[in-house]
């Protein structure tokens, strides 16, 4: 076993939360599932929170639809493997219900159209609810390790900033303005507010403004609870028991995004505990690409020439990938770098996850 491969097992053993982050399309969901499976194999009680997994992977994990509670996946392992597919809206609903003063306040909020829009569409809501869910799983259920897949975002810190963004939104100056009329403040504020609302209504229509007003009135008094919860979630994410895994692929554009993610995490004092590179072209060995290409040219038109050309193709792309990854590895040092080769077949079931595990934990 190499140091890097042992390091991934240590990471699972020593952290109670593992966050997989990276750009879209690099295999974060699959990686999260493989890590959770391995944790179960190590005898741990693990749960993976996925966001929008591909259908066959969801089927393989026994996820039949969005659920708010984890379900156990049966298998031959000493630990336990649980999985759940994040349902942003019901997670948000539970958060509202848990923070409301009474069921009537909760009902007023849950029925409001503006709330329904926020819970489904406010940018960052999905990120925040993923974090909220992992906090809840960590706090209330007795899992050894919670592994979470993050939504594809352009900015690694979106999900870290999401709790703050939501509370900032709820704390917005405008929100204060909107609430002031009901608090019976002076008419001057009222007039200014009304003028502003009229201009907004001009753009989006009066109904929308009416819904928003009703929402903020219903929400009054709950913002403190929300803020406290958000700061506890943030605290957990920046604690030592949380490990961040950066997932990437060896293409130039994706590596550039990964470097950007790594920098942002470093700025926030969050160490990257491992770098996992998916879909690396396999190294078949042999001479360097230039020499092979030359052989292919000399032998053009023969089967051997084509065999050389093919090997040269893989050696060429392999060398480029090595170059990109060397720079990235340096920027996350001392985190171990684990490469998962581009496999000869696609991954969409437990056997496929096992094959990846072979490369991650060989």
């Amino acid at each position: 076993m190499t140091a890097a491969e042992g390091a991934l097992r240590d990471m699972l053993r020593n952290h109670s939360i593992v966050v997989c982050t990276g750009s879209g399309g690099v295999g974060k969901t699959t990686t999260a599932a493989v890590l959770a499976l391995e944790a179960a194999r190590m005898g741990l009680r693990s749960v993976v929170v996925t966001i929008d997994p591909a259908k066959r992977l969801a089927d393989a994990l026994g996820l039949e639809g969005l659920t708010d509670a984890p379900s156990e996946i049966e298998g031959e392992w000493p630990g336990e493997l649980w999985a759940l597919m994040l349902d942003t809206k019901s997670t948000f609903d539970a958060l509202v219900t848990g923070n409301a003063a009474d069921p009537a306040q909760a009902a007023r909020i849950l029925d409001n159209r503006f709330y329904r829009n926020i819970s489904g569409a406010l940018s960052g809501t999905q990120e925040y609810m993923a974090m909220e869910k992992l906090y809840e799983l960590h706090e209330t259920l007795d899992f050894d390790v919670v592994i979470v897949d993050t939504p594809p975002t352009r900015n690694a810190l979106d999900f870290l900033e999401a709790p703050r963004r939501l509370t900032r939104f709820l704390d917005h100056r405008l929100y204060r303005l909107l609430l002031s009329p009901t608090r019976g403040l002076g008419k001057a504020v009222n007039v200014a507010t009304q003028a502003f609302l009229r201009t907004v209504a001009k753009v989006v229509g009066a109904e929308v403004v009416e819904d928003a007003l009703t929402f903020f009135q219903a929400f009054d008094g709950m913002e403190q609870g929300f803020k406290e919860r958000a700061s506890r979630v943030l605290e957990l994410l920046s604690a030592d028991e949380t490990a961040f895994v950066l997932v990437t692929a060896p293409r130039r554009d994706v590596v550039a995004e990964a470097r950007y993610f790594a920098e942002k995490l470093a700025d926030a004092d969050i160490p990257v505990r491992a770098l996992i590179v998916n879909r690396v072209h396999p190294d078949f060995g042999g001479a360097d690409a230039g020499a092979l290409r030359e052989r292919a040219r000399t032998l053009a038109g023969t089967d051997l020439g084509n065999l050389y050309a093919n090997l040269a193709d893989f050696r060429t792309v392999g060398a480029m990938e090595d170059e990109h990854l060397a720079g990235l590895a340096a920027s996350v040092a001392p985190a171990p770098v684990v490469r998962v080769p581009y496999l000869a077949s696609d991954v969409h079931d437990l056997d496929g996850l096992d094959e990846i595990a072979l490369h991650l934990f060989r």
Partner: protein
Amino acid sequence: MDPAQFFAASRVVIVAGKGGVGKTTVSATLARAAAQVGLTTLVVDVEGKSGLASMFGQPAFTYDEAVLSPGGGPGGSADVRARTLTPDLALLEYLEDHGLSKVSRRLVGSGAIDMVATAAPGIKDILILGKVKQLETTAAADLLVLDAPAAGHAISFLRSPRGLLDAVRVGPINAQARDVLDLLTDPQRCQVILVTLPEETPVNELVETAYSLEDEVGVSLGPVVVNGLYAELDGLDTDPVAAAAAAGASLRPGEADHLAAAATFRRSRMALQAEQLDRLATELPLSQIHLPHLFTTDLGPADVDLLAAAALAGIRALSADGTGP
């Protein structure tokens, strides 16, 4: 089908697909191909990705239009230009064009745009699509290629006008949503080109996306672009030792194994690709344009030209009504 006729079918082409399948590559490819047959092309980016500019060997571009590859030259090709659209700037521009610059400063300056966008989700999308519609009506280029957000988002992105028509029943946003919907549902003005890789998961997602876009948005779908196909290469099933004997060449120690391993890998990927192409054809009655897998991690102008040539060949192979081959 004649490529010039293909690209003239609608002024707007929206390129959509799951993350990682090469949407931006395909946007660059189609733009370059259209420019090569003489159409000035504007690529519209909505995610501020740097990849597009470097594919043309150019520095990153912004909200203002930049030339990625100039027209003229021996091939007589036209310009490929590009710009990034952001909802905030599109909104400012919209409000200023409609004599509401005072409101606009207040909306954007106070951060209220987030609040308004929350009140009626889809507003940011409609601002971008509204700007695309304006570029279309003012004929900013012969062809507008919109590099859409990744798949899940692409559906909500394109569904935004319908959703907004329900949420906002009056006013300029409503009018904008109506205009955008007219554009999206008119096959003479707009078509969506879906991109996939010849792999199981992306093909599944593409099929799902295709049906939801047709049913829920009512857009017209152009041919599907399948990206990353390994090119045919004879002799990959020949044993390297036998191939060497036939060619009268000798192999270095260990080389037979390296050659055989690489050949086996490529053949198994190719078999898988062929299977997925068949499945795609069975599950989705749309014609396909195939682009080759390039053995590089850094696409540059020469690669884009190569892909554009493959796209043009694929378009020529389509039947005249665009449904074949």
